[in-house]
């Protein structure tokens, strides 16, 4: 008897499973996200998606794949015909590497007047990387900037943030005199120091030309960069593990714990170290200083964000765009900003997290967009070699001329 009842129940369950979707209301949107499920961004996005489901009656199949999962898995999955309606990742990767899979969003954006409350610089950047049309919607904006510890600056008697290299050196001297280490970074980000500095001298195109064509000795600005960082080392302004500590050793250690005053990094830094700094850390930020005779000013820098892309083969484009609007506008954009200590994408959310207050001014002044590390990592066959020699330069194991010679030799 028991067996019969069990068989009957099993048959009912199977029947429901088979015919259930036929009678289910609403549509299903498949969304692959670059975040890991435990990250604050993922938690906020999951809440926004739930709100969308409740309001629309549709179902969202939200899958957090993580960065590596997206990088390795999205394109093969799309090629294999897997249904993925909506996905997010870095602005350059979505538009350049996966550009062929994207739906043009101009009409959807116009229909909902999306741009009225979006950051115009970011939308322009999204159009630029997509070749002039809007194929992605930015959220979680970031800006790469020089972060500093305001308490150390105050203690050292620095009244205004440095804008030129001369002022930067003067600030470093004061910080050192106050008993702190002026400047640090980790191995993961040391290339951005090189890229930014060279770009300040000759612009991003010069950086890309040097790293891709190997014009190290032929480009006098390279020697100037090396001399400036050699000078920083010789004067004792750099951490003894500048650029050589395995990430996140120095950002979590000497910077977050208050031994070092400055760290060049993206606006995600306060979120990454908030468990160490606590809420009382006094965050400051300024644009990477200009250099004598350089071409680029404080209005040039790396900024961007994560972006949303919609599969061009989707059958639920409007629904997917509505999810984008839910996440990137109003309540949930603010929640995302608060939870992840990030910059809001909606311009009506004027209240930024306190740790990023100083970043607001840096971002407002940006007009020229650098690629990641100002293009200094654009030749992957050379990046590890540049990194090694720059690390040696910054730790006193190579002179400025030695750096240029080593790079020239490596590029031949």
């Amino acid at each position: 008897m028991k067996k019969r009842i069990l068989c009957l129940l099993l048959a009912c369950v199977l029947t429901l499973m088979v015919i259930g979707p036929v009678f289910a209301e609403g549509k299903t949107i498949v969304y692959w996200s670059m975040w890991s499920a435990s990250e604050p961004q993922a938690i906020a996005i999951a809440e926004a998606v739930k709100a969308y489901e409740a309001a629309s009656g549709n179902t969202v199949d939200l899958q957090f794949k993580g960065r590596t999962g997206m990088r390795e898995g999205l394109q093969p999955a799309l090629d294999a015909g897997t249904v993925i309606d909506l996905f997010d990742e870095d602005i350059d990767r979505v538009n350049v590497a996966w550009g062929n899979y994207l739906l043009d969003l101009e009409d959807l954006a116009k229909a909902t007047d999306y741009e009225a409350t979006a950051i115009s610089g970011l939308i322009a950047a999204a159009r630029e990387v997509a070749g002039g049309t809007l194929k992605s919607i930015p959220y979680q904006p970031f800006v790469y900037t020089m972060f500093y510890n305001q308490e150390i600056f105050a203690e050292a008697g620095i009244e205004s943030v440095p804008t030129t290299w001369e002022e930067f050196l003067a600030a470093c001297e004061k910080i050192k005199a106050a008993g702190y280490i002026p400047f640090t970074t980790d191995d993961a980000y040391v290339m951005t120091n090189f890229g930014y500095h060279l770009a300040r001298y000759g612009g991003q195109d010069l950086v890309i030309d040097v790293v891709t064509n190997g014009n190290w000795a032929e480009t006098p600005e390279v020697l100037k960069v090396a001399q400036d960082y050699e000078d920083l080392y010789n004067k004792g302004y750099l951490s003894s593990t500048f650029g050589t500590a395995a990430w996140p050793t120095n950002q979590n250690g000497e910077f977050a714990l208050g031994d070092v005053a400055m760290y060049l990094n993206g606006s995600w830094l306060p979120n990454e170290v908030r468990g160490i700094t606590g809420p009382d850390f006094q965050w400051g930020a300024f644009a990477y200083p200009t250099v004598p005779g350089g071409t680029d000013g404080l209005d040039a820098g790396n900024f961007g964000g994560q972006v949303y892309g919609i599969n061009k083969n989707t059958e639920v484009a409007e629904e997917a765009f509505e999810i984008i609007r839910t996440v990137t506008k109003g309540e949930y954009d603010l929640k995302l900003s608060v939870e992840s200590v990030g910059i809001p994408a909606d311009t009506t959310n004027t209240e930024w997290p306190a740790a990023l207050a100083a970043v607001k001014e840096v971002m407002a002044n940006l007009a020229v967009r650098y690629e990641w590390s100002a293009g200094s990592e654009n030749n992957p066959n050379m990046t590890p070699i540049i990194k090694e020699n720059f690390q040696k330069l910054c730790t006193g194991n190579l002179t400025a001329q030695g750096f240029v010679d080593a790079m020239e030799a490596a590029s031949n």
Partner: protein
Amino acid sequence: MKRNKTMIIVFLTPALVLFCAIFVYPILRTIVMSLFKVENITSGIAQWQYVGFQNYKSLATTSLFKTSLLNLLRIWAIGGMVVMSLGLLFAVILNSGIRFKNFFRAVIYMPNIISAVALATMWIQFVYNPRFGLLTSTFKLLGMDSLAAINWTDTTHKFWALLFAYCFGMVGYHMLIFSSGIEKIPQELFEASTIDGASKVQQFRLITFPLLRSVLKTNITMWSITSVAFFVWSQLFSMVTADTQTITPMVYMYLQVFGAGNVISERNAGLGAAVGVFLGLCVVIVFVLTNRLIKNEDLEF
């Protein structure tokens, strides 16, 4: 016994089909792919662009790939010697009748059941940390300031820091294989040699080691395969951007197939396939050489 050919075919066919689909086809496809420029690993064959041996020529002239090969060679040779020596030593000690054998064996094997991510994080953030790492703190406590000041992850020390951490985790695995080989050797051989007056060292040199030749071959082959696939530890010691001290051919292959971490770089799955073919050949050569150089013992026991 009469053979039923039909039954043989019926039972063998599924296995053969699966073997061809899962092993033979991917190998052949990879070899063919290595002669093409392929932007994406899942691009259709119609999108492949024939380049002949250009991918191999490109590898031969790229200094970063050569650096990665040198790193692999150092991991295989130096790490191999350390791991095999320690694994064998521990296996011999554990089988010499010491007390708490199972406890010590479990302790030495333990790193193998911990995730490589957790292990590498422990080494980088706890042992090698320049501010409050185990090494720095210990050397400071002992008054050895010059050693305490070493940054174990800088360009001079990073490779050795990585290799040490990796070997630490691998010793237990190979110890276990050696140990199982030693346990198979009949106890009477040791008893007879003890009566004849052989010391422990002589027993190891004249009985244990010669009878472990086939186990040693297995261990060398296993070590070669895991070394060639060296990837996760390298990635964990150089997060975000690759590093000359930690890059291996597998990392180089990954960069070519999936692009660099932060920037959108040109991808070529064909070049990645060429790396794969080259590494496959390396393993085959090591396997053949090992079989030639280490003869199987004629003894039966």
